[in-house]
């Protein structure tokens, strides 16, 4: 980030939170804290906190490894150990990191898991991932929760009940057994109340892109903004404080009429407003971002910032229905929505945030995102007559990021947007 950007208080707060977590993890053995590995979509952060456990998110570690240019080596290590070229690169990066000593982003060792908690089954790779980890960590307790897919675009009471039953009969008793701590519902409710507060703030933050210029980039900066809530701080006071600070900083940017912050300082002219579907590429994150901000393109909404929870449509964790809230949360994560729901959600973003275009970044090794992406794009194009663009890259395998190909396609796309903008303006006149 730029000199000025580094002074933003929220960034300092976030850095401290992450460092604190990894410190706690490094000292878990000494402090006697249990460690729970889990995934971002459908994570039961509040329940993990209720049992005083520390969370580890393997896919977050993978993306951080990629940003630190370590993923290529880790992936090579995993492939040496018979993980196929076609396997999700988050998995291989994580497995490779583990094989190389499990050193996390802060340079400290990440402790072994006491629990492998899978609370979202929409991504089948997650199942296989934990099967692999189970072989490496035979002492870890595996807890698997089946999350029903929103096949018919609704969460029925039966679906919720089915999940709550699993929490009551499987998850909670096993957590009690591993931690030796009795389930305390009042404590869970307190965490859920804090989650609700943070979620309100997050919804407000991502809604600021309604402004012109947009004060934030909801994809490239957005992935930083969702960092705290996706790395295990949901349900904590720290998260609430962070989002309060971030929101006030953004309000100040709106007051001053400023555009988003980029690694090269403030974006001067907002030329195009886009909605992006799909995760970013992490190995060349800066280069990828630069192609956009160099062209004056700001992302006003993205699906990826919703993987850890969809708060746009008003859903919040409800402390009064603690286990039901957790169940709904799991079922309501972005990739658990059916395709028409995703189309509706993205269409709403395009309309409400006055986007000029819709871009799909299709990820080679991510089935949960890639399945249906083309159909969604077609439907959105037809429904809203918005120009659509399609690029391809990968999560954390640098071999699948081709700068020149992506730049070529995006350049064409931006030229296409420019033309259409002019036609529209002419039509207005």
């Amino acid at each position: 980030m730029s000199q000025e950007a580094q002074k933003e208080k929220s960034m300092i707060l976030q850095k401290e939170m992450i460092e604190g977590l990894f410190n706690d993890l490094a000292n878990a053995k000494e402090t006697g804290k249990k460690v729970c590995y889990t995934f971002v979509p459908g994570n039961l952060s509040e329940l993990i906190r209720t049992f005083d456990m520390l969370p580890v998110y393997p896919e977050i570690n993978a993306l951080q490894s990629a940003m630190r240019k370590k993923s290529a080596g880790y992936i090579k290590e995993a492939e040496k150990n018979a993980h196929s070229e076609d396997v999700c690169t988050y998995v291989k990066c994580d497995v490779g990191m583990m094989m190389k000593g499990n050193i996390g982003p802060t340079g400290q060792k990440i402790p072994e898991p006491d629990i492998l908690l899978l609370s979202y089954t929409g991504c089948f790779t997650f199942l296989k991932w934990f099967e692999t980890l189970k072989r490496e960590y035979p002492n870890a307790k595996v807890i698997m929760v089946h999350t029903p897919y929103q096949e018919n675009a609704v969460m029925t009471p039966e679906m919720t009940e089915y999940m709550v039953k699993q929490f009551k009969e499987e998850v909670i008793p096993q957590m009690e057994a591993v931690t030796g701590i009795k389930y305390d519902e009042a404590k869970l409710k307190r965490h859920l109340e804090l989650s609700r507060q943070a979620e309100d703030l997050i919804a407000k933050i991502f809604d600021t892109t309604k402004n012109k210029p947009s004060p934030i980039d909801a994809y490239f900066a957005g992935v930083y903004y969702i960092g705290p809530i996706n790395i295990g701080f949901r349900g904590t006071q720290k998260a609430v404080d962070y989002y309060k600070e971030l929101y006030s900083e953004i309000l100040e940017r709106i007051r001053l009429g400023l555009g988003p912050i980029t690694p090269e300082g403030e974006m001067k002219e907002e030329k195009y407003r886009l909605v992006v579907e799909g995760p970013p590429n992490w190995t060349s994150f800066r280069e990828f971002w630069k192609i956009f901000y160099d062209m004056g393109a700001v992302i006003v909404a993205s699906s990826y910032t919703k993987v850890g929870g969809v708060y746009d449509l008003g859903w919040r964790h409800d402390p009064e229905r603690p286990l039901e809230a957790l169940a709904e949360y799991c079922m309501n994560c972005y990739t658990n929505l059916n395709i028409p729901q995703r189309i509706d959600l993205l269409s709403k973003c395009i309309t409400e945030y006055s986007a000029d275009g819709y871009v799909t970044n299709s990820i080679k090794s991510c089935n949960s995102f890639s399945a249906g992406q083309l159909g969604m794009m077609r439907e959105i194009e037809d429904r809203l007559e918005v120009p659509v663009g399609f690029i391809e890259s990968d999560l954390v395998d640098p071999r699948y990021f081709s700068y020149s190909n992506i730049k070529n396609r995006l350049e064409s796309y931006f030229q296409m947007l420019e033309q259409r903008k002019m036609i529209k303006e002419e039509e207005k006149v």
Partner: protein
Amino acid sequence: MNKYYLGIDLGSTTSKAVIINDQDVIVGRGITNTRANYKVAADIAREEAIYDARFTLLSNKIKQDMEAKPEFKKYMADIRTVFQYQQFKRRMESLEAMLKKTVSEFTYSNKDAIVKKLDEILEIIRPQIRSEFIYGDLGSKNQFFRDIVSEKYNLEVGKIGREFYEPFMLAFDKSITPVENEMVLFNFKELVLESMTVLEEKYKGLADEQEDGSKEDWYYAELNAVKDNYKNVEFSLREHIETIAGQEIHIAKMVGTGYGRALLPFPEDCIKSEILCHAYGAHAIFPNTRTVLDIGGQDTKAIQVDSHGLVTSFHMNDRCAAGCGRYLGYIADEFGLSLNELGPEANSATKETTICSTCTVFAGAEVKELLHNGEERPNILAGLHKAIVQRAMSLIARSGGVRNEFTFTGGVARNQAVLKYVKQMVKDSYGEVTMNIHTDSIFMGALGGAMFARRNISADLPKTKTSQLAD
């Protein structure tokens, strides 16, 4: 002064230039193979387009005669071929000098024999090529300098002893690049006049050809007319040649596009994406076009356009050579054929051999295996052509399918076998739709560029277009 607009499409295999007038009518086209030096490739294409534009202007001057009298039509076609040959000849002289210089620096023990053999080879191929240009149809084969020379040269090298193979290949490789990268400017008037002398020689000695029914009637009509009346045509041309040669082809604006566009010596605002240019060019020629398929050397694009010719979405294959023109180039090499021979041979197939490989390099291995198993070469070629089109069809499907009129552009659209399969598969998948393939399909990107140039891109966007090709 008339204003003209230039579009240059610097592709991975060929560089194309198109000049249009202020009514969007194409007045000149130029094409050359893309070489290491992009600037030279672009300059050559541009110069070619300017010569072509002068011929167009010349033809316009004698338009009535060309329409009414067969000898005018024939003469104009022939003079362009000879003009091409005159350009070829200059370059050939450079190449000969360069080959001799390269060989003189060799340290092989049989150097003297090499020098002698080189002279012999050059003495053989020089008149061969001349004759094929002037009396044959070499000029209409769309072959570039490098291809023409190497074909003849390799054939002769193959005939001499094996000990010469390596030095001769080395000599060619070392000499061709600097010659290709050299920019030679020709004097239009001088070259036209020289061409007229050559034509005089040709027509004077032309024997009566017996009508044996193998050719169309107009062929004999043109031939007889030109034999008897070429002096009249010459006379008419000489009347205009001075004016046309002296006329400035004022390029008011230009736009560069294509894979090498960033390397063109153009200002940034004169560079446009080839996707937009191809769509715009295709739409200009066929205004009802809604889907454009462009198969180029190193990428394939499926583009959807609106009624303005503006792109609404596109899909590209820019990762994998299987499905691009280069695939055909590779296959041609594998079979020792020239690119132009691929399509006709594939079209002579009795069936299409299934080619499973999705990779260009591995397709090579598969082809060898099939040949070994006794599969006929045309059938294998047909299978390979079909495979390319299947890939393109999948790209079209990804981009939203064929919605209305469909236009096929890019260098590969010149391949008759590809064309056959495209027509067939589009029909199978999308039913009866109008399919447009134009002889200028390879120039669509450059045409779109020129049209953007004329519209100054930002200031004057198209509302309605009336566009047609010059005769």
